[in-house]
C-alpha cells in the first residue's frame, strides 16, 4: 500500500506543472485593447491600411513575393507625421518569414522628405550618409534574433557606426506597427541595404547604382546596374587578376568590411548576406547587414578562419586572391584587423554601453509585444537573452585577445 501511495505521489508531482509568474513594475495594456489613440509610447507608431483580403493572401503566401498597395500613417507622440501615404507592402525575409511576426518591406510611391516627416530618426549616422530622403524602408522582425532580444543586428550595426568603419550600414529605430488599426507588434525600422536604400544615402537615383548580392551557397545575384562589369569582375577573380580587382574594388571599404565581419565572426557569411555596389563608374563598396548569427558559432576562430570557412563564395575567392598574392593587401588587412581590435570603441565596455542604451529604450515597450508573441515569454527571460548577447561579445573578445 505504501509503495502505491508513494508511486502515486510521484506521478502527481510529475504531472503538476512548474509555473513562473511575473509582475511588472509598470502598467502594460492588453495588446488586444491597444489602439493607435491610447498607446503611450516614445516609439513611432505606424498604421498600414490595406485591403484585408489582400493582406490575408499575402500572409498566407509569404514566399510568393506578393506586393500589395497600402496607405501608411506614422505618428510620433500622437502627432501625425505621415498621412495616408501610398506604399507598396511586401513580406520580406528568408527563414524569418515563417515566423508569426513577419518583416515587411515598405516602398513609397514618392520619395519622402525624412528630414521633415521623421520616418526614421536614428541617434547617429555616418558623416558621409544622408537620411534626408527615403524611398523605402524595412520593418524588420530582427530575423533569427526574433526569439531572443530584437536588438542584436541593430546593436552590432551601431558598433560599426561608432567605430566609423568604411562601409554602408542599415540604420535602426524600433516602432510599434498596426495593420488596419490592429496591433501587429514591435518591429525595427531599418533603412534598406538594397539599391533604393543605398542610393538615398548618397542622394543618388537608383538607376545610377550597380548592386550585387551574394546569397547562400555563394550565388551571385545582380540586382541592378551594369551586369557586364560584374561578370568581368567575377571572371578576373577566377583568373586571379589582382590588378583588375584592385582597380574595381574600394580596398579600404573591402578591408574594413572583411575585418569587422570576421572579428565578430558572422556564421551566416561570407557565402551569404554579402552586398556590394558601385555608383556609376566608381569602385565597388560594401554593405553590412544581417548580423543575427554573429558571435554565436565558432567564436574561438581566428578572424581569417571565419573568412576561409570552407564555403564557396566570390567574396571568399576575391579575398584569397588578394591576401595570397598581394603582399601590400595582406599587410594592410592584417594591420587593420589589429587596429580595429585595439580601437577602444571595439571593447566590452563600448559594446555594453550601446546594448544597455538600446535595452533601456525598449524595456518598457517590449512587454506589449511579448504579451502577443510570447517569444520570449517574460521580461526576465528577455533580460537574460540580452545578457547572453553581451556575454557572447565578451567571450569573442576574450578569444580574440589570444589571436593578436
Amino acid at each position, binding site marked *: 500500500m505504501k509503495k502505491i501511495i508513494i508511486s502515486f505521489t510521484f506521478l502527481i508531482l510529475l504531472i503538476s506543472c512548474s509555473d*513562473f509568474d511575473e509582475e511588472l513594475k509598470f502598467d502594460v495594456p492588453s495588446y488586444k485593447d491597444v489602439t493607435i489613440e491610447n498607446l503611450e509610447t516614445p516609439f513611432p507608431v505606424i498604421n498600414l491600411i490595406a485591403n484585408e483580403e489582400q493582406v490575408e493572401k499575402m500572409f498566407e503566401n509569404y514566399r510568393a513575393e506578393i506586393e500589395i498597395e497600402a496607405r501608411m500613417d506614422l505618428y510620433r507622440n500622437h502627432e501625425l507625421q505621415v498621412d495616408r501615404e501610398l506604399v507598396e507592402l511586401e513580406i520580406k525575409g528568408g527563414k524569418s518569414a515563417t515566423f508569426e511576426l513577419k518583416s515587411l518591406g515598405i516602398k513609397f510611391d514618392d520619395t519622402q522628405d525624412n528630414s521633415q516627416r521623421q520616418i526614421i530618426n536614428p541617434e547617429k549616422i555616418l558623416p558621409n550618409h544622408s537620411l534626408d530622403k527615403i524611398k523605402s524602408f524595412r520593418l524588420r522582425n530582427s530575423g533569427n534574433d526574433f526569439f531572443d532580444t530584437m536588438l542584436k543586428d541593430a546593436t552590432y550595426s551601431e558598433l560599426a557606426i561608432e567605430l566609423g568603419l568604411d562601409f554602408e550600414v542599415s540604420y535602426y529605430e524600433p516602432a510599434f506597427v498596426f495593420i488596419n488599426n490592429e496591433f501587429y507588434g514591435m518591429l525595427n525600422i531599418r533603412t534598406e541595404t538594397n539599391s533604393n536604400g543605398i542610393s538615398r544615402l548618397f542622394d543618388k537615383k537608383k538607376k545610377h547604382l550597380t548592386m550585387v548580392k551574394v546569397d547562400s551557397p555563394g550565388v551571385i545575384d545582380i540586382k541592378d546596374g551594369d551586369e557586364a562589369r560584374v561578370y568581368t569582375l567575377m571572371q578576373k577573380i577566377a583568373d586571379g587578376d589582382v590588378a583588375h580587382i584592385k582597380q574595381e574594388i574600394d580596398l579600404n571599404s573591402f578591408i574594413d568590411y572583411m575585418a569587422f565581419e570576421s572579428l565578430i565572426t558572422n556564421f551566416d557569411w561570407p557565402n551569404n548576406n554579402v552586398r556590394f555596389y558601385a555608383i556609376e563608374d566608381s569602385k565597388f563598396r560594401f554593405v553590412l547587414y544581417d548580423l543575427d548569427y554573429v558571435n554565436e558559432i565558432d567564436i574561438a576562430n581566428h578572424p581569417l578562419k571565419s573568412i576561409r570557412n570552407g564555403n564557396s563564395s566570390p567574396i571568399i575567392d576575391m579575398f584569397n586572391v588578394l591576401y595570397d598574392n598581394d603582399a601590400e593587401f595582406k599587410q594592410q588587412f592584417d594591420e587593420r584587423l589589429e587596429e580595429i581590435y585595439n580601437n577602444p570603441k571595439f571593447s566590452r565596455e563600448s559594446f555594453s554601453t550601446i546594448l544597455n542604451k538600446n535595452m533601456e529604450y525598449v524595456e518598457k515597450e517590449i512587454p506589449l509585444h511579448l504579451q502577443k508573441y510570447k517569444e520570449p515569454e517574460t521580461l*526576465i527571460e528577455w533580460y537574460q537573452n540580452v545578457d547572453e548577447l553581451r556575454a557572447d561579445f565578451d567571450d569573442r573578445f576574450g578569444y580574440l585577445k589570444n589571436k593578436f
Partner: protein
Amino acid sequence: MKKLLFILFVFAFFGMNAQTKFNVEAHLGYAFNNDLYMNQEKISSNTVLMTQLGANVQIPIYKGIYGETGIYGKLYFAEGEVRNSSYNAKTLRLDIPFLLGYHFLEKYRISSGFSLSNNRDFNELNISKENNVRVNFLIKGGYAFHKKWQIVALFQRNLRTTPDLFLLNEPRTTISVGISYALK
C-alpha cells in the same frame, strides 16, 4: 513517452526484491546563489525555498559501505526582482541520485555522489537546446534516532555552467534537512 518511461521506472523500482534497505525521505531546505547578476545588476532579493520528497534504496557493498540511488521530486518556491520585473516561481524537478556511503558508529551514515535532474520542465525538454539536464554534486549525512527513523542533511551543488536565468528559480546550491523512514 517520457512520462510512460518514468512510470515504468517507478514501478520497477518499488517492485525490487533484494537484501536492500528501502527508505522514503522528505526534506525542507534553502537554495541560494552566490552573487547572481542580470543585466549587470546584482539580484538582491532572491529567496528560494525547497522541498524534496522521494525514496531511495541502499544496497550493501562491503562491510559498512553501501551504494544508494533513488528518485525524488524537488519543488522550489522562488521570488525576487530583476530591474522592472518581480517574479514568483514554482519549479518542479525530478532528481535521480547516485551515492556511495559508509555506515559508522551504528547510527550514523555519510555519503557522497552526484545526481541528475531536469533543468527544464518536461514539456520543454529539447535535444536541440542546451541546459536540459543538471548534474549536482551531493553530500549527505544521516543519524538514526529510532529503528526506522533518521534525520538526514543534504548538500547539493550544481556542477554545470547553467545560465543565470535557470538559477533564478532553481539556484546553484541547496542545503536541506529532512527525515527518512525505513520501509524495509
